[in-house]
């Protein structure tokens, strides 16, 4: 008898909870438009009228909204959208801040950490009768830094020798950004 009462009470409780939840969802969504916000970059912080939105889907009343998105290494996205009573897809496209070559004075990272990540720079600049190997630091404080290996040689033999030279120093050239200076690709 008691068991039956407990089961009935549990079912009533569950059904009540489902009913109340469904009702509150319906009330919340009533008169609002379903808005989806696919973002081109994961991890971006999206705000609508300065309020942080934690989901890529939201229900909004018709009206004008300022949508913004920020992420380290990307330009801030800001756009005013007019939400009407039709479901809308707000495409948020973040553009990355281009990396540029930085001088030693502009470099604001940890040089020892950079050296640990790119140990080849301890060996550069490296001069050979056929070529010169050097490096540039590229990037920004927000995007992080990377190394670009510079090869200077005025002959095909020298350019090939430079790539072999990187290997001889104990590094694999395909792991790096490599730029040949004063050189133009002949295949057009």
């Amino acid at each position: 008898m008691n068991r039956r009462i407990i089961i009935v009470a549990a079912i009533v409780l569950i059904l009540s909870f489902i009913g109340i939840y469904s009702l509150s969802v319906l009330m919340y969504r009533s008169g609002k438009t379903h808005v989806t916000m696919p973002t081109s970059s994961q991890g971006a912080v999206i705000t609508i009228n300065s309020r942080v939105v934690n989901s890529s889907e939201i229900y909004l009343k018709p009206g004008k909204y300022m949508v913004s998105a920020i992420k380290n290494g990307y330009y801030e996205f800001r756009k005013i959208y007019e939400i009407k009573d039709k479901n809308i897809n707000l495409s948020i496209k973040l553009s990355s801040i281009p990396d540029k070559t930085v001088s030693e004075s502009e470099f604001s990272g940890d040089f020892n950490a950079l050296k640990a990540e790119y140990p080849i720079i301890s060996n550069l600049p490296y001069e050979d009768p056929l070529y010169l190997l050097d490096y540039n630091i590229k990037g920004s404080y927000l995007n992080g830094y990377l190394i670009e290996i510079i090869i200077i040689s005025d002959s095909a033999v020298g350019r090939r020798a430079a790539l072999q030279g990187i290997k001889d120093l104990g590094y694999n050239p395909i792991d790096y950004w490599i730029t040949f200076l004063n050189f133009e690709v002949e295949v057009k």
Partner: protein
Amino acid sequence: MNIKKISIIVAAIVVLLVGFGLLMAILNAPIEVNVKFTSSYPDTKITLKVPKSKDVEIKGGQTIKLSVGDYWASYSNTDLSKNPFLISIKKTTNDIRLDPGYSAEILDKKMSDEKDSIENKIISIFSSSTYSIETEKLYHIGEWFSGSLTVTQTDPNADPLLGNPDDYDRYYIVFHKDSQNNTWTLVGGPKLILTKPENPTIPIYVLDDINPSS
């Protein structure tokens, strides 16, 4: 009294040792997980080398119980590459998605079938230079192509016999074939070296293979 005491101590030590032994056995027992093997190639069969045991034959779509650890495996299908590869099974592993590539013989055959269409594509893209197309190769299931272009004659009036073959640059190119419309698209090069950071969409096995310093 003394005997009773000693018996109790010995019994306690035995119980402790047995308990410790059991605990160690439980701790060191191999953790087994159910792993489902799926494959992009139909009817894939792989042979798994299990240490201190018989090799295990697995078919695509099969779920088997395996201990956590690393296993060497190789495909048994005649068309697929026989190169052994490592499968790591962790506590959290539920699925292993296999993506086999064709054997070198099949890829060579496919290369001869595709040679004309790829070379025509290269010539249509790089129409302003004179070069020879070399080291042509297909990878995986034939959807990746790498080759090199050597500019042999930049001056049309120059005597080809006077040219120094060592002083020509070799440019590397990579094409990818679209499975929908069967067209080849240039995805890397022409460059003297195709590096990993500059070509994130090209598989590493392709870049490793065409590395000019190797």
